[in-house]
Structure formats: C-alpha cells, structure tokens
C-alpha cells in the first residue's frame, strides 16, 4: 500500500528530458539511417534526397577501396585485439603479483587514456620519421639498422605502424580492467589450492582464469568495438594513405562524406551499425555461457 504511494512520486518527468534528447540525436538518426542508405542524398541536394533502391550497396560492393577498408579494419581489429588481450593480461598478472612501484607502472601505462588520438598520432609520426626518427635511430644504434623502415610511407609497414601506436595508447585501460578482475578473486581460493597441492599452472587454469572471464569478456568487446571504430589514429598518422593501403572503415566513410556522397556513406554506416551490433550481442551471449558463478 505504502510502496504504491511512493512509486507514484517517481514522475515520468524525471526521465523525459534525457529520453527526448537521446531519441532525437541517437535513436532517430539510427532509424532514419535505414531510409537514408537507400537514397541518392548528396551535397548537391542536401535537403531533397530521392530513393535509388540498392544502388548504394551495389556501388559499395563494387568499390575496390571499400574492399580494402573492410579488409584493413578486420586485420587491424584482429591484430590489436589479440595483442592487447594477451599482453594486457600478462602485464596485469605481473602487476598483480607485486612488482615494486606497481601503482606507478599502472599510472604510466594508463596515462595515454587522457590524450587525444590525433595528438598521439603526431608524436608517433615523429617517432616513425625515417631519417631522424627515434625508432630508426635506436634500431641503427643496436646494430639492427636493416630493420629500419619508412614506417608510414611504405605500404607494407604502414598498417603495422598504426597497430603498434593503437596498442601503445589503449592497452592501459585493458590492463586496468584485468587488474580489477584479478584483485576481485578471493585470496582464500589460492590458499585452499596451495593446501591441496595445486601448482602455479593449475591455480591459473582452475581459479584465476574462470574467475576473471567476465573481465576478459568486457575487454574483448571493448577491443573489438574500439578496433572496428578506429578513426583518429589512422586519420592522424596516414589518413588512409599511402595509396589507400591503410584505409579503414572510419576513414572510408569520412572520405565519402567529404566528397559529398551522403547516401553512399549512410549505406556504409548502416552496414557498420548492423555488423557491430550483431558482433557485440553474439560476444556477450557467448561469454555469458562461459561465466562461472561464485
């Protein structure tokens, strides 16, 4: 009786402003994307788009640059996700097992989180500079001069250079999440396992791994989505060049948008939205099955 009276006090007015704003600038555009993708909307007639059926999608699938950008995005996402998860988990394990100055290390690795990806990209374009760049200088110093490359202008290495920078700047958040996951495992479990005579590896397999699978799930999704959405890193370092060798989905959409092909970019955006949403939901579902209750 009383709780019903209280419930009446939570007026819908509380949620309405947020609801309207979110609907207008997020939900509505996402829904209208379903329509826009099938129009010839362009910068010539910005307010009078006309339907042109599947034309945009046909054009997309016939465009070689689109194919390259899809392939590059997949490679980038796979490579950075694997490295960030494996190395990030390794670093979190090291930090969790008590090296000295553990918090200092964590702070240092995490710090790029506050920097703009474009600004980081400019610093890295200096690091990658072929003649004087510190990376090539270092390689020559230690006698590995043959490894020195034109990192950003050689089509073979540009994508790798971008991946390295992305891992450098965003592994910190991954480490922090793993670390929190590791710290949430009750210490008694390890003590009990030691009493039972379990070694380091079986402790990892039977305690650490199953109990940190939730943070593994979150990190994998973050890496996958972050990788697929990559934009600033590529835009700042190479802007898709040399010769579209590093064109990714985000830069491809921006390029089509800048040349005024709005309907075409909307079609590319729609495909992206559908794929990313599906991947996220599937990954979430998959990990939910692996999860262990404790």
């Amino acid at each position, binding site marked *: 009786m009383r709780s019903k009276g209280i419930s009446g006090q939570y007026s819908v007015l509380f949620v309405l402003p947020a609801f309207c704003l979110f609907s207008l600038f997020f939900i509505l*555009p996402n829904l209208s994307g379903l329509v826009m993708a099938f129009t010839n909307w362009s910068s010539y007639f910005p307010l009078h788009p006309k339907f042109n059926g599947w034309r945009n999608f046909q054009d997309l699938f016939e465009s070689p640059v689109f194919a390259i950008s899809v392939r590059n995005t997949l490679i980038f996402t796979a490579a950075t996700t694997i490295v960030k998860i494996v190395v990030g988990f390794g670093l979190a394990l090291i930090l969790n097992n008590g090296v000295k100055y553990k918090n200092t*290390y964590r702070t240092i690795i995490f710090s790029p989180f506050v920097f703009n990806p474009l600004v980081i990209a400019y610093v890295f374009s200096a690091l990658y500079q072929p003649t004087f760049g*510190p990376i090539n200088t270092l390689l020559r110093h230690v006698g590995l001069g043959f490894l020195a490359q034109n990192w950003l202008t050689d089509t073979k290495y540009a994508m790798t250079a971008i991946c390295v920078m992305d891992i450098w700047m965003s592994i910190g958040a991954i480490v922090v999440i793993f670390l929190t996951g590791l710290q949430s495992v009750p210490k008694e479990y390890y003590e009990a396992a030691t009493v039972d005579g379990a070694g380091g590896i079986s402790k990892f397999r039977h305690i650490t791994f199953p109990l940190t699978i939730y943070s593994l799930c979150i990190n994998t999704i973050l890496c996958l989505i972050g990788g697929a959405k990559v934009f600033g890193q590529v835009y700042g370092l190479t802007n898709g060049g040399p010769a579209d060798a590093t064109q990714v989905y985000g830069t491809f959409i921006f390029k089509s948008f800048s040349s005024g092909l709005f309907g075409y970019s909307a079609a590319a955006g729609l495909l992206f939205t559908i794929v990313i949403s599906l991947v996220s939901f599937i990954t979430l579902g998959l990990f939910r099955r692996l999860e262990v209750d404790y």
Partner: protein
Amino acid sequence: MKRTFKFRSATWLLEAVMVVVALCYLMPIWIVVVNSLKDTLGANRLGYSWPKSLHFNNYAQVFAKSNALQGLTNGVFIGVTVVILAGFLAAMAAYYIARKGSGFAKFTSLYFLTGIIVPTAIIPTYFTMLVLHLNNTYLGIISIFVAYTLPLSIFLYTGFIRTIPREIDEAAIIDGSRPIQMFFRIVFPLLAPVTVTVIVFNFIGVWNDVTTYLYFAGGDKWPLPMTVFKFYGKFSQRWDLLFADIMIAIIPCLIFFVAGQKYMVAGITAGSVKS
C-alpha cells in the same frame, strides 16, 4: 635455497620487463619535452639530448601563430556545459529507472542501453542537424555530446542508486517534499561519488573527441587538442613549434589525469567486475 634463488631471478625479470614497458611510455614524452625547447634545426633532428640553450620562445610563437587560446576556451565551454547537462539529466533518468518498477521504466533502461552497444549513426545525424539548422553551432555540438554521453552516465548512476536504501525517499516524502525537490535536496547529494566519476569520464570524452568535431563543427569551435591538427597542417616541417604546441595541448590533460585518475579507473571498471 635453490628455490628462493629461482624465485628471485624471476622477480628480477618481471621488474626488468616493467622498466622496459615504462620506458616505452616515458621516452616519447621526453622527446616531446626536450625538442619543444630547441631551435628549429635541433628539433628537426628529433634527438634525446637536453637542449644546449632553452628556447621558451617556441611557446610564445605557438600562442601567436595558433588558435590554442580559442581552443582552450572552446574545450572548457563545451566540456563544462555537456558535463553539467548530461550529469543532471542522467542522474534524474537513472533515478526513475532504478526506483520505478513499471514496464516503461524497464523499457527506458533497455532503450538507453542500446546507446552503449549500437554505434552512432553519424551521417543520418548530419541530416538531422541540417534540418534543425544546428550544424556548426555550439547548441548542436553540445546536444549531440549530451545525447552520446547519456547512456553510459545513466548506466553508472543506475547501478549506484540501486545501492541507496528506499527508506530515504519514503522519509522525505512523508516530510512533505515534492518529488523534484526531494531529488535535488536529498538524493542527488548522496550520488556525489558516482557524479565525480561521470564528470571526469564525460569531460575527457568530449575534450578528446575527434569524429564529432570533424563532422559537425568548423575549426573555430574546436577544442585545444583539435587545434593541433590545424597547426600540424601549417607547420609540418617545424618540429620545435609542433612539439611546443603538443605540450600546450597535453599539459591540461596531464593535470586532469593526475587529479582524476582514480575516478577514470572507477568509470572504466564499473560493470567490468561482477558484483
């Protein structure tokens, strides 16, 4: 005896690994700092050495030649407005979602959750902005940012409000407070810990955003880090000035980082640990 030796050498190895990792992060910053104080010829060699004479003049030149100050004002203005609006709107919405058991409340909860999973539809948003005449206006940029930051903010607030006992609301209502009054006087102050996290998180997000500014705003509305982009286009062969400009862009971030690191970690890890 043998075991402890083995154990010790393993510990040393791990320490060494961490030192190398830390150097990978500190060296780039060091290069930016020392070269921002050299003359053009020295800076373009991108070396590690400490400058022979300190050219603080680089910084003065950057302020004269770039629109760093305008960027700082833009960034602070847009960031603060978004943070305040998103904070209040998200807290109120989350309060409704966490407290009311109705079907609509459950629907809204899922509705906002889609904003975390589904990517933003930039091109159609551009059309919406075109129709509303909001492209390249502060109002437009701020509205978009508030809409984009709401889902995560609401998610963080909802989790926190669920931990606050309902008896507090009941007591306030029996005392005769009106709902909105009760919320701002009694509930909102209790949310302070998560409010700080939301503020820090949203501010960093808006400050460092690239996509939204490139698509929806002209250079005169860009925040400080984006002004480096413009500057880079003009002075790509002057690393002394570029590094000085980068320093100007990252110093506010570093100060913010030192002050707010704890809350950024809290924001990132909220929801990543099963409770």
